[in-house]
C-alpha cells in the first residue's frame, strides 16, 4: 500500500441522531503514523464524528474509508474488525468486570491467539493497571478508568486509535501521564491516533495536525503549531492566550 493512501478518510459526511443533525459535510483524513486532533466546543459534534466513524449512527450521506476500503455501510462490530479501536466518551468501562476482564474483552472478539503481549504492552504504558488487575472496573478512579479505556482499546492491536476526550475531568498530573502515553505509543509503535479534545492547548501541542469543528462543520485545519498560533483559536479555545 502506498503511503499516500490515508488510513482514515471521512468524505463529506452528514450525520446525527433522530431529528438532530450533528455533522454537516465533514471531511477529514488521517495519514498512517499521524496524531490528528479534532478540537471544538461542547456540542460541536466531536463525539458524534468518532461514533459515526464506528457506524453508530450511520452517516446520512458521505463515505468513510479505512485504508482505502469503504466501511460506510458496515455494522459497528464489522467496522471494528478493520483495525479500529475507540476509547469512547465517558470511558464506558464494564463496571462489574475486573480490570483484567475489561482488558481481555478488548481482545476477545477482535483478535485470536494469546493476548499476553498486548497485556504486557498495556502494563508497560500504565503500570497502575497492573496493581488493580482484580479490582472491579466500577471501583476505579476517573484517571484509572481512562487508562483502562485506552488499554482496552489497545488490546485489539489497532492500526487506528480513536480517543474521545481522555483529559475530561482528570487532574493535570494524570492528564500529563495519559498524554505522555499517547505520545510514546505513537513514537515507538507508529500507532495512528485521532484525538478529540476540548483542551485545545494540550491537544494541538501533541498532534501533528488538527481540525477545528464548529457546530458540525470543519472550520479550520492545519498543523498543530499553526493552529496554536492562530488568533481565532487563541480567543475561542485557549482563553485569549492565558493558560487555562
Amino acid at each position, binding site marked *: 500500500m502506498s503511503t499516500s493512501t490515508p488510513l482514515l478518510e471521512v468524505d463529506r459526511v452528514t450525520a446525527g441522531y433522530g431529528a438532530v443533525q450533528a455533522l454537516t459535510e465533514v471531511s477529514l483524513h488521517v495519514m498512517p503514523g499521524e496524531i490528528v486532533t479534532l478540537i471544538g466546543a461542547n456540542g460541536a459534534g466531536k463525539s458524534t464524528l468518532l461514533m459515526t466513524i464506528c457506524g453508530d449512527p450511520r452517516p446520512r450521506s458521505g463515505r468513510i474509508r479505512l485504508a482505502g476500503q469503504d466501511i460506510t455501510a458496515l455494522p459497528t462490530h464489522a467496522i471494528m474488525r478493520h483495525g479500529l479501536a475507540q476509547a469512547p466518551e465517558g470511558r464506558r468501562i464494564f463496571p462489574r468486570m475486573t480490570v483484567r476482564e475489561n482488558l481481555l474483552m478488548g481482545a*476477545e472478539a477482535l483478535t485470536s491467539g494469546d493476548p499476553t503481549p498486548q497485556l504486557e504492552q498495556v502494563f508497560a504504558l500504565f503500570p497502575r493497571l497492573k496493581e488493580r488487575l482484580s479490582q472491579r472496573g466500577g471501583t476505579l478512579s476517573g484517571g484509572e478508568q481512562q487508562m483502562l479505556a485506552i488499554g482496552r482499546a489497545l488490546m*485489539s492491536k489497532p492500526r487506528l486509535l480513536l480517543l474521545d476526550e481522555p483529559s475530561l475531568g482528570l487532574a493535570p498530573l494524570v492528564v500529563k501521564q495519559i498524554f505522555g502515553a499517547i505520545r510514546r505509543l505513537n513514537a515507538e509503535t507508529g500507532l495512528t491516533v485521532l484525538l478529540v479534545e476540548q483542551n485545545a492547548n494540550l491537544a494541538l501541542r501533541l498532534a501533528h495536525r488538527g481540525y477545528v469543528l464548529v457546530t458540525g462543520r470543519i472550520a479550520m485545519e492545519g498543523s498543530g503549531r499553526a493552529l496554536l498560533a492562530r488568533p481565532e483559536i487563541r480567543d475561542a479555545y485557549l482563553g485569549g492566550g492565558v493558560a487555562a
Partner: protein
Amino acid sequence: MAYALQQLINGISLGMIYGLIAVGYTMVYGIIGMINFAHGDVFMIGAFVALIAVLLLQLGGAMDGPAAILLVLLASMAVTALYGWTLERLAYRPLRGSFRLAPLISAIGMSIVLQNYVQISQGARVKPLEPLVRGGVEVMRDGPFVVQFSYVQMLIIGVTLAVLAVFTLLVTRTPLGRAMRACEQDLKMAALLGIDTNRTISLTFVIGASLAAVAGTMYLLRYGVIDFYIGFLAGVKAFTAAVLGGIGSLPGAVLGGLLIGLIETFWSAYFSVQYKDVAAFSILALTLIFLPTGLLGRQEVEKV
C-alpha cells in the same frame, strides 16, 4: 414434621420449574432492559411441543425409558428455541431504538398471539397425559402419613440442576457468555469491541426459550395436564421470582424461583389452596415496595 418434609420436597420441585422460567426473564431484562411478557407463553409452547413429541413417540411405540424422555426434552428445547428466536426477530428487534414501552407492548401482543395460536391449532380443551414416570421412594413414615419423593420430582430436580450447571458454564466460561456479560453491562461498548450485539441478543432469547422448554417439559411430566393458558400464571409467578431474586441476576432468578415454589406450597398446605396465587402475588407487591432491587440484585450506582 413428616408433612412439612413432604411440602419441602414438593416446594423445591415446583420452585425449580419457576426458576428455569425466571432465568429467561432475567436474562432478557439484563441484556436489553425489557420484560418479555410473552416468556410465560414460550414456556407453554415448550409444554405443548413436549406433549406432541410424547404422542408421536407413543404412536411409534417408542415412548419408553429415560432415552425417550431425553428425546422429548431435546425436541421441546429445539423447537421452542426457534420460537424464542422468531419472537425476538419479528416483534422486538424492529422496535430497538424506539421508545422504551414499545417492545413491552409488543411482548404483551405476542403473548396474546401465542395463546390464541395454540388455542386454535391445538384446541381450547385441557390436554391430559397419563403419567410417564410413576412411583417413588418412601423417605419416611409417620403413622399413616408417608413422605414420598417421587421419581418425577427427582427427575425435575436432577434435570434442572444439570441444565443450570451447563448454563452457568456457558455464561462464565465461553466466548458467548463473555459477550453476553459485556452486552448486559454496556451494549454500545460491546459493539465497539467487535461483538455482534444482535447475534448475542438473539442467542439470549434462544437460550431463555430452551430453558423455558425444559420447564414446560417438566411441568407436563409432573402435572400431566396442560392447556393454552398455563403460560399466564406460570409466567407471572416466574416473573415474581425474578423480581424477588433481583431482576438481572441469574442466581437470583433461581433463588427467587425456589422461594416462590416453597412459599406457594407451604401456603397451600397450611393455610389455603384457594389463596395460593394471592400469596405469590403479595410477595411481588411486597418486594417491589420494600426490596425493589430484590435479594441478589444490585443497586444501580455507577461512577460517572
